[in-house]
């Protein structure tokens, strides 16, 4: 990477428990700004748990408990004074299954702005246009803005969910297997989109698809049973992994 390196997120000794079960066992990891970081690993190893720890979505789960620190923009988000609403606005999330609200397309995109008290009409319209442009939906949907978003195709829905985040101009976009419900063509187009978004946003993506991690990401982390086994530049992870377990996984000799 050229220029100064800025860690937008620094994770220190992160433990997450579901009741007594230890889902993350002391994770240390830095996420660089304006990069795509991919998290890979077998099912149940804690990728989603980790991602959800970055904008405190685990708080919603009854019985989930977090220890350790996550510094976002220099501040520990687990400090009791953290304003969760602002945190989630700045660190947004795209889910595995597209989950647009059962509202009109327009209301979906402006939702985040409205809940944060931004209601000036011109402003909403401008953000609506810009966000839909950014995810390449504007031309397709500009005449259907008042239609119910649930009528859209899976790919359009996922794009809309991304647009709904971008409308808030977050700094970090967390994506939990954003393409797993999409066909390969749609997946390719969403990957192109991520590449474009990298200019303005920091992206952390969880994926089961190693080719996808290799294609889109700058950094890759390999999780196994709640541990971060290895984290480094994607090229290096895929060509010369330092840890035997990583090597086994990416060469398909896992398990």
């Amino acid at each position: 990477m050229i220029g100064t390196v800025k860690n937008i997120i620094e994770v220190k000794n992160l433990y997450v428990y579901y009741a007594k079960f230890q889902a993350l066992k002391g994770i240390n990891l830095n996420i660089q700004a304006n990069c795509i970081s991919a998290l890979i690993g077998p099912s149940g190893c804690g990728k989603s748990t980790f991602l959800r720890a970055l904008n405190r979505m685990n708080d919603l789960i009854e019985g989930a408990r977090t220890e350790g620190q996550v510094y976002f923009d220099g501040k520990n988000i687990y400090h009791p004074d953290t304003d969760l609403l602002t945190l989630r606005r700045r660190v947004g999330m795209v889910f595995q299954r597209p989950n647009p609200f059962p509202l009109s397309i327009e209301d979906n995109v402006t939702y985040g702005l409205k809940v944060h008290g931004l209601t000036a009409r011109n402003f909403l319209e401008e953000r609506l246009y810009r966000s839909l442009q950014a995810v390449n939906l504007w031309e397709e949907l500009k005449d259907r803005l008042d239609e119910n978003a649930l009528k859209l195709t899976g790919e359009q829905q996922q794009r809309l969910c991304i647009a709904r985040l971008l409308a808030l101009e977050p700094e970090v976009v967390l994506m939990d297997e954003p393409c797993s419900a999409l066909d390969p063509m749609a997946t390719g187009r969403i990957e192109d989109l991520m590449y474009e978004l990298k200019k303005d946003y920091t992206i952390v993506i969880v994926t089961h698809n190693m080719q996808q991690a290799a294609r889109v990401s700058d950094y890759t982390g390999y999780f196994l049973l709640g541990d971060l086994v290895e984290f480094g530049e994607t090229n290096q992870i895929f060509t010369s992994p330092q840890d035997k377990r990583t090597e086994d996984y990416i060469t398909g000799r896992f398990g």
Partner: protein
Amino acid sequence: MTKIERNERLIRLCLLVVAFSAISVLAVITIFIFEQGTPIMFKYGFKNFLLGQDWYPSEKSFGLFPMIVGSLMVTLGALIIGVPLGLASAIFLTEFSNRRLARILKPFIELLAGIPSVVYGFIGLMFLIPFIRENLGGPGLSVLASSIILGVMILPTVTSIAIDSIRAVPDSFREGSIALGATKWQTVKMVILPAARSGIVAGVVLGMGRAIGETMAVIMVAGNAAAIPDSILAPVRTLTSNIALEMAYASGEHRQALFATGVILFVIIMILNTIANLTSARQKKR
């Protein structure tokens, strides 16, 4: 034809017969009411029935307007009281209370629906009527008392159906909203309630049906004067009460006029249901 196919046919036939006989019983009742009630309306004129202000059956004066107004007033009153309360409890129990409390309280709420209406009427008579009479004035037996009693009676219906439809809203909507930095209340207001709307409306329609059809409890607290109430503290008579109070001794044209009351009640309920269904369908399409 194989044995399985023959069996399938037989089952279909049986179901058809059962369904048809259930529906035909309803049809027979409807036809009977109309057959008994409409001739007298033709004889004295629809207008006199619908808009006439005087109900003196012995003098052949069959104006049902006060009762129509009465039914609509107490039903509206019941909705004004029952719907916000029911919706608020449903929202509280599903979204804001812990799961254990909701599990304990929901069966309790549903139990309330099983209490016989005469008990509600009795409680109204014992506590509500004196309270209104002493604190607000009037005879106590009133539109207000009827609305409150009916509002409480429809509460379980509205609440438990709203709870079911709010629970049916997928968690992914909640997560999506919270992840954008919305508060819980914003999520409920802007996502959950719109998503659950058609179920909630269905509950309100059922509650409305119960309110407009309720007889016993209303007779006990309404005062039953066959005149248009001039305030919410004045007595009122509903269409159902009109039938129930007089059926026992009515004969001849008086009796037919009570069937005519049933016809009007029937039509009003049909109209209200249709309006409610249309508005929810229209809102959903948007």
